[in-house]
């Protein structure tokens, strides 16, 4: 089972991100479960969503306490929420920012994790570029596919297009692809750095 | 469908709950005596025939009417309608114009040639009726309906009595009178006119009559003794009217003074106007309030130019000058002389101071008691002599045609009982339907319809009828003003207002009955009955 937790704020598509991810996993023939940890339906409030993927039926209903991957859609939450609680030492972290972890002041924090599994990605920029709106969730899923290899970009692409009809789906898919490429490159960079 | 237990119920199941057991008082339908019926001297069931006229069923209404009175058209003209005086509606707005509706029905019957109900099966009994005025004709009619043979005799050349010889034609056109008399005669009556009965005992025995009805009227004009220079210029009103009726009017001159205060005085004055008098002055000893003549008669007379000298009495009639003495009323309302004298130019003087009855035919009937010039009778109208009945103006009562007609009916019933050897029974009278029992809310507000009146100019010179009849529409309207006091007229109020559906409507003309299984005795039906035809009575416990 692969467990993902997504942090963001109301209105950023946090819940949708988990759902799309689950649909992508489903499209690949896996069992998947997505659900939010909801508050009132207001813009701007911190929101968490979860997605599990497994080859067996998923029975548990607990929130993802021990995440295999964490996606942070809104970097401003870093100092408000215990974003990285329960992240597995083998886990992945994808943060939506154009800055580096060092710039965010998190550089030292990640000592126990695989450095090459921690990536920042300017998903909002990709979203603005493709969609014209700051909705980074599809892009982040593309980045997630690149980072974790738990899901294919194709599946993300399918799920995004299933979620968003027509041109909107097209553009979200494009943003996902852009992020995918970005993260792939960043990964290669990190791997290189690690080997060096 | 098998219904869920208890929660879901089948219609009609509440009939098992007999809520009538809650009742401590029960409503009952009653018929009360309407004041109009109560007041009618002829005993007409006025409320009933108005009820029948209301939907426009005029023939049925007329038939109801002639059950009691064979003279609707005559009555509709000359009756002084005590019914209207008694009418409860007068306390609401104005009395129902019963008289006008009666005339409408009477005229319609003549127009359409409706016949009176046929004579009854022959009883083999024979009755002599002396006098063919309203009393005699009424008795004749009712006797024929009871199956008795009638011999009707009168000294006059025509039937009708005072209706013909006392009431001027402008009030009662002769064609109307003739039509209604003819209908009675058509029932099979042995009529002998111009025959004056001299001795009732002889007449009865010779004819072998089982009973006799005396209805000889009061044909003799009373005289007052006043000094008169030329007695030929003094005549009595009865004679005047009689001669006019016989187309033999006396010459009265331009200035005519009538002395008296009754309807006859006014008839005489109005007749004088029609005979060409420029001045027709009624001299009366008392004031207007105490005048016995009917108000509408006075009104009509005044409109026609008749004048009245109130509180005046005759002192002397000198040639063409009449000397009057002014009177005043004492504390008891009696006129007292003042000594004050007035003079009046007069070509003739008509005395209208009352009429007397010629009872000479009773000289050999010692058992018939006569007092103060009139015959004493029992409630059955029988005199002191067995089998001899009397009525009309010759018995003590108010002298109107309507009273006489009532006498005729009552006498006929008395005679019927007598000749059959039965005791006469008076039908129980229902309790009076008083105004306080009427729920006036329910009646539409509507003013009484005015009878058209001939324009003044025309009636001053002719004997054409003064008061016109109602159109059908107006008659219907007037009939519908009836409150139907004390008698169910099927307004459905009781049927409608019962919260428990405990009134059963039986259908048109069948009225209603209470369903005491469910009537809780709330009394709304009683309260909301417009005409007071429901009483509440204690339940027997």
């Amino acid at each position, binding site marked *: 089972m692969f467990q993902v937790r997504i942090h963001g704020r109301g209105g950023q598509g946090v819940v949708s991100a988990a759902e799309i991810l689950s649909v992508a996993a489903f499209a690949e023939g896996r069992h998947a479960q997505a659900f939010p940890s909801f508050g009132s339906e207001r813009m701007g409030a911190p929101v968490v969503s979860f997605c599990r993927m497994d080859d067996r039926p998923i029975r548990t209903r607990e929130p993802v306490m021990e995440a295999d991957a964490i996606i942070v859609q809104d970097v401003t939450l870093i100092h408000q929420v215990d974003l990285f609680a329960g992240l597995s030492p083998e886990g992945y972290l994808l943060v939506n920012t154009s800055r580096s972890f060092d710039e965010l002041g998190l550089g030292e924090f990640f000592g126990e994790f695989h450095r090459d599994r921690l990536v920042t990605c300017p998903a909002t920029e990709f979203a603005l570029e493709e969609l014209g709106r700051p909705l980074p969730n599809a892009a982040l899923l593309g980045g997630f596919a690149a980072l974790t290899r738990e899901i294919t970009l194709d599946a993300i692409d399918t799920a995004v297009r299933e979620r968003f009809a027509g041109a909107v789906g097209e553009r979200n898919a494009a943003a996902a692809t852009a992020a995918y490429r970005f993260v792939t490159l960043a990964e290669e960079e990190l791997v290189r750095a690690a080997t060096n | 469908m098998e219904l869920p237990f208890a929660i879901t119920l089948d219609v009609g199941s509440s009939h098992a709950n007999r809520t009538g057991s809650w009742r401590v008082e029960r409503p009952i339908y009653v018929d009360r005596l309407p004041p109009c019926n109560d007041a009618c001297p002829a005993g007409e069931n006025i409320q009933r025939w108005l009820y029948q006229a209301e939907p426009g069923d005029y023939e049925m209404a007329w038939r109801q009417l002639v059950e009691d009175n064979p003279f609707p058209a005559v009555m509709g003209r000359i009756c002084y309608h005590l019914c209207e005086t008694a009418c409860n509606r007068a306390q609401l707005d104005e009395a129902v114009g019963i008289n006008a509706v009666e005339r409408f029905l009477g005229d319609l019957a003549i127009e359409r040639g409706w016949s009176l109900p046929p004579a009854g099966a022959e009883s083999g009994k024979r009755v002599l009726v002396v006098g063919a005025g309203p009393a005699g004709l009424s008795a004749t009619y009712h006797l024929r309906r009871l199956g008795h043979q009638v011999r009707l005799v009168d000294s006059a050349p025509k039937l009708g009595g005072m209706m013909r010889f006392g009431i001027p034609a402008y009030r009662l056109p002769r064609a109307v009178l003739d039509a209604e008399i003819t209908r009675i005669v058509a029932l099979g009556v042995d009529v002998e006119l111009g025959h004056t009965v001299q001795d009732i005992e002889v007449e009865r025995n010779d004819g072998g009559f089982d009973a006799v009805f005396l209805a000889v009227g009061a044909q003799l004009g009373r005289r007052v003794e006043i000094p008169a220079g030329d007695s030929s210029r003094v005549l009595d009103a009865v004679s005047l009217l009689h001669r006019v009726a016989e187309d033999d009017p006396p010459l009265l001159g331009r200035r005519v003074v009538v002395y008296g205060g009754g309807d006859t005085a006014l008839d005489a004055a109005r007749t004088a106007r029609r005979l060409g008098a420029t001045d027709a002055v009624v001299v009366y000893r008392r004031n207007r309030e105490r005048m016995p003549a009917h108000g509408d008669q006075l009104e009509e007379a005044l409109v026609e130019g008749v004048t009245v000298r109130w509180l005046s009495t005759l002192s002397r009639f000198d040639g063409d000058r009449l000397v009057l003495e002014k009177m005043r009323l004492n504390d008891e309302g009696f006129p007292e002389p003042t000594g004050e004298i007035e003079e009046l130019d007069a070509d003739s003087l008509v005395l209208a101071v009352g009429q007397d009855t010629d009872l000479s035919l009773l000289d050999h009937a010692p058992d018939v008691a006569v007092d103060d010039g009139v015959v004493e009778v029992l409630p059955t109208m029988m005199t002191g002599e067995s089998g001899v009945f009397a009525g009309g103006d010759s018995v003590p009562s108010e002298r109107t045609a309507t009273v006489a007609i009532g006498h005729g009916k009552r006498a006929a019933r008395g005679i019927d009982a007598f000749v059959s050897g039965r005791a006469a029974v008076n039908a129980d009278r229902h309790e009076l339907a008083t105004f306080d029992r009427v729920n006036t809310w329910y009646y539409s507000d509507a003013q009484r319809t005015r009878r058209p009146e001939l324009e003044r100019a025309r009636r001053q010179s002719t004997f054409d009828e003064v008061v016109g009849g109602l159109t059908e529409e107006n008659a219907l309207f007037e009939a519908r*003003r009836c409150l139907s006091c004390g008698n169910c007229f099927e307004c459905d109020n009781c049927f409608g207002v019962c919260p428990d559906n405990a009134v059963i409507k039986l259908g048109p003309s069948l009225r209603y009955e209470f369903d005491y299984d469910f009537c809780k005795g709330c009394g709304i039906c009683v309260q909301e009955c417009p005409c007071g035809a429901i009483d509440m009575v204690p339940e027997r416990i």
Partner: protein
Amino acid sequence: MTTQPVRFYQVGSFAVGNRLLPDDDRTVQSDQNRTNSLDSGHRACQGCGEALGARYALDAAMRATGGRLVAVNATGCLEVFSTPYPETSWRIPWLHSLFGNAPAVATGVAAAMKVKGKGDVRVVAQAGDGGTVDIGFGCLSGMFERNDDVLFICYDNQAYMNTGVQRSGATPPAARTATTEAVGPEPGNVFGQGKDLPRLAMAHDIRYVATATVADLHDLEEKVERAMQLHGARYLHILVPCPLGWGSAPNDTILVARLAKETGLFPVFEAEYGKVTAVSPIRHRTPVEDYLSIQRRYAHLFGEHSRTDIIARIQAIADQNIATYGLIDDEADSRGQKEVTA
């Protein structure tokens, strides 16, 4: 029997029936074959105005709909006295659910009829004043606002009678109830409170709003018939005196209702889409004393310590109604004729 051009019918349209009227102008209640929607054997008190009003209204609705009618009933006297197991007094399909939900239940019935293709079956919901102006008002307002195809009838007897005469939002000022006792300096119900539900209904801009009393059957039936000719939310407010709660004589039920109208205390009118379109004018203007003094719930206003001040305040309410609705009409007295002509 002839048909007459005469416009005068003896009892005009004041009495229940009138043999002089053409059949079509006669009331439903005068019909031997009326439905008797609320039938004999019910357990209403003697002289119950509500039992009367309910039969009047529903029989009229039955005629107007050709018998295609369903009634929904709120909890209350009418429900309790009509359907105590094992007996029902209703001859029409009838449903009772709760005190406060009759409008919504009726909405459901109407929706079901529509969806079942039985749109010809019409729905009447009925409640007392408590079930209408108080506990049922939320559902009623919702039904109005959605313009559901329901005629809602309030049988207003101005208090909670079923539970023993407690004050409702329809209880008039100064009236004694078990929760507004006739004690203290301001005995009875207070002034300045209460809901005027017909006007609240009008504020919803619904198709038809009318008031009526059990004292004027023709008027009541015409309003029911009119209401049933229309679709959408409709409201009929019928004043039904309660001998028990008002302390009036059982046989005075109709009289009391009549006086409520004739004093001006209960304006009788019709409104469409929120605007008054017709008023029933006062026929015989009557001082409020005549109305109040025959009800024990106002007994504290009369007698030794009579409260002419309070009576004057009630008269002022009547006068205000008369002015607001224009209840005095010169032609009022000829109404019996006017209506038949119309």
